[in-house]
């Protein structure tokens, strides 16, 4: 994966964006509603018995003769879950490579930001993954593990569901969503209270297939066959059906409040990452 220094610096300047922040239990760089010991002052409250005397603001006591303690923000980490589709359908037109690259980039952003990263490569089931990765030092292992993830199998987005430990964080699903149960699977990730981001990897070749004449089409995952005459009318109908399918997924995500981004398989990685920076995307600049 082409992660040069400049690109890594770019990634380090990004942060994963979660609409509803559910922080983790570990300290991190993300603000938490709980009281903490960070340097960020929040407000005062009256002293109660048992409070640490070190937190009493003596200046206020001198002025008002009442004991108040200072309250500070707590900073916790974000538990990011990256699920990347390595099924058979992703083996066309460079989709799998782009999906892995995006997964690597997003994961690196999480690690660089101090978030906890869990990830999974899935087809019919989860075929590779890791949990609880922290720090940039884990990045190399993460990238190697991604590259080594075995590919193949049918697409079953239920296998993209985050593990229980990461269910309350940010789930990023990178796939071509060639699964009739994709919407149900995405919806099922929501009750766990996590944020779900759908990154849809598509290819121009899918929309404009270079096919003509009488063909016997075979599904790469199911092996199901279909005889078609790839004439102009059939190709137009195919494009219409595919576009409608993609648009329906996008509309579903909008209804569910899930950020949805479409990434072109042949696009440079920087462009693909940039697409995630757009409003409603999965990344933001610090």
């Amino acid at each position, binding site marked *: 994966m082409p992660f040069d220094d400049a690109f890594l610096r770019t990634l380090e300047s990004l942060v994963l964006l979660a609409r509803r922040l559910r922080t983790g239990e570990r300290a991190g760089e993300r603000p938490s509603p709980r009281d903490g010991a960070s340097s960020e002052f929040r407000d005062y409250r009256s002293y109660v018995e048992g409070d640490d005397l070190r937190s009493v603001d003596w200046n206020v006591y001198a002025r008002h003769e009442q004991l108040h303690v200072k309250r500070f923000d707590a900073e916790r980490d974000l538990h990011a879950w990256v699920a990347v589709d390595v099924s058979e359908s992703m083996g066309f037109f460079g989709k799998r490579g782009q999906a892995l690259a995006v997964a690597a980039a997003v994961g690196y952003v999480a690690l660089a930001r101090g978030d906890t990263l869990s990830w999974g490569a899935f087809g019919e089931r989860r075929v590779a993954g890791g949990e609880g990765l922290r720090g940039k030092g884990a990045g190399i292992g993460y990238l190697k593990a991604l590259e080594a993830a075995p590919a193949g199998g049918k697409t079953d987005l239920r296998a993209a569901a985050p593990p229980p430990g990461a269910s309350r964080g940010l789930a990023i699903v990178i796939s071509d969503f*060639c699964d009739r149960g994709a919407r149900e699977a995405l919806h099922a990730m929501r009750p766990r209270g996590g944020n779900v981001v759908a990154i849809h990897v598509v290819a121009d070749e899918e929309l404009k297939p270079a096919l003509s004449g009488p063909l*016997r089409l075979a599904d790469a995952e199911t092996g199901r066959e279909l005889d078609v005459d790839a004439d102009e009318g059939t190709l137009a109908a195919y494009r219409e059906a595919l576009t409608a399918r993609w648009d329906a997924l996008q509309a579903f995500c909008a209804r569910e409040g899930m950020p949805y981004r479409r990434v072109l398989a042949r696009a440079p990685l920087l462009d693909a990452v940039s697409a995630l920076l757009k409003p409603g995307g999965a990344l933001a600049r610090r």
Partner: protein
Amino acid sequence: MTFDRPLFLWAFLALAPVVAAFLVKRRRTRVVVPDLEAWLSAAAGKRVPAGWRQFREAGSLALNLAACAALALAAAGPRPSAPQGTDWALVFDVSASMGASDGRWDRSVRGAQEFARGLPRSDRFRVYLAGAVPRALGGWREGGEELPGLPRPDERSGDVAGALALAKEDPAARAGAVKTVVWSDREAGGDMAPRVAQAKENVAIEGLDARRRWNSPMVDVVVRVTNHGRGRAAPIVVAGFGANLEPDYRLLEGLDPGETVLLDLERNSRDGGILQVSVGEDSLALDDDAFAVVPPLRRALVFVVAPEAKSPFLSSALAALGDALDRDSGLVEPGREEPADLLVFDRCAPSAGPCLAIAPPSSAAAVENPAVTAWAADLPLLRGLDLSRLRVARARPLAREPGATVLVDSAAGPLAVASPDRVVLGFALEDSNLPLLAAFPLFVRNCVEELSRERPMAPAVTGEWVTPFEGEYEAWEGGFTETRTGPWRATRPGHAIFTKGGISRPLAVNFFDPAESALADPPAGRELPSPAKPPPPPWAALAALAALLLAADWGFVARR
């Protein structure tokens, strides 16, 4: 059904690759796609029932096979064998007038060629030549083919009626299917006779007679010239012969249309030779020149063969010829062969060669006082003679042999007959009053002239057969010499020289035919009908059908 190019029927084997290509095409290419869902949605709206699809594929195969079969059939050039066509007899008048310089012959040949090319292939044609002897030229040919090579028209006459009869009776023609087309500048029969000629001016020499005066260097020449044109003509007549003699020019003041003049030209020549008379060149070259042979002035060598003393009557008759006789002439013994101009056998058997036989030995019974009933006064031998007072006391009548001409006839039989090289009298001079008549010396002179070994041959006309000698001889004409046997045919105006045994016989050949020279009134002609437009060849219809089938396949089957 017949085929012009039957080898192309092998193209039907191309149907097998068509079927194979169809089967190969029917096998769909298998393509693996990431997801079939969108394709299923797209195909759902265009799903074709299997039965209709199979019918459509079978229909496409049938249309393609039919188109290929039609193309193969078209390439083979099918031709319906029925119905029977028409046999056309193309009759060409090859008489001399068709060779006029106005191009009527070329126009005729061109028109006939176009006509033959326009005939459908079911028709046939054959060329007939209407010359002096009508005849067919080559066999029957199919419509559209080229004409056979035609000779130039130079014959003396054109027997168009004979050619038409020959065509109608052609055993190789299809019964009841013969139609005739005549290309002639004369009124002719035939089903069609296109106009080939326009009226042309023509002045023709229609006769020439050149005769040397007896024992004189003077030659009397008479030329007959006729204007066959529609306007007045003033031709110049040129006559000349011999190597060292200037030609004689004579300007005719004017000849009205149809007028004929006889022109007397007196020439002085001891050597003789070929006399050529010409008028100016005009539409018909054949009648612009005429030829005559003028014998040289020479003394005749005459020998008299008699068993006894020479008849005094004969002696006096020969003496009357004066210096026309060679001084070596005289009496010889019987049986002695002499190279003489004339041998006179008096009361003895004649030998071969030109001779006058007087009362030769005969087994015929003698007849007393046979009455002379007729004599051939128009023959050269009796030219200028009056034999009305001829009386014969005793004679042995001669046989009427074929080829012999009766000179003097009687109730008892011929008294004098002539063959080409001899004259025979059936009575002795002493038994008649012939020696006492004034006609006798003239008769002897005529015999010397007409029976001389080197007498000029009578002029011939073109197309005539002449026999200059018996047996083998050499014939010279136009600078070429050939050895021949039998008759010789005169083909063009001019002269020929025949030689045998040191004896030369020149011959003048002329084209004297007023009918052929008259070019003023060609017939209006009956134009040929436009050739019936032949139906389009079957191959064109088949090719169109193939294109239609392929278009149907593309439009109604392949495109859907």
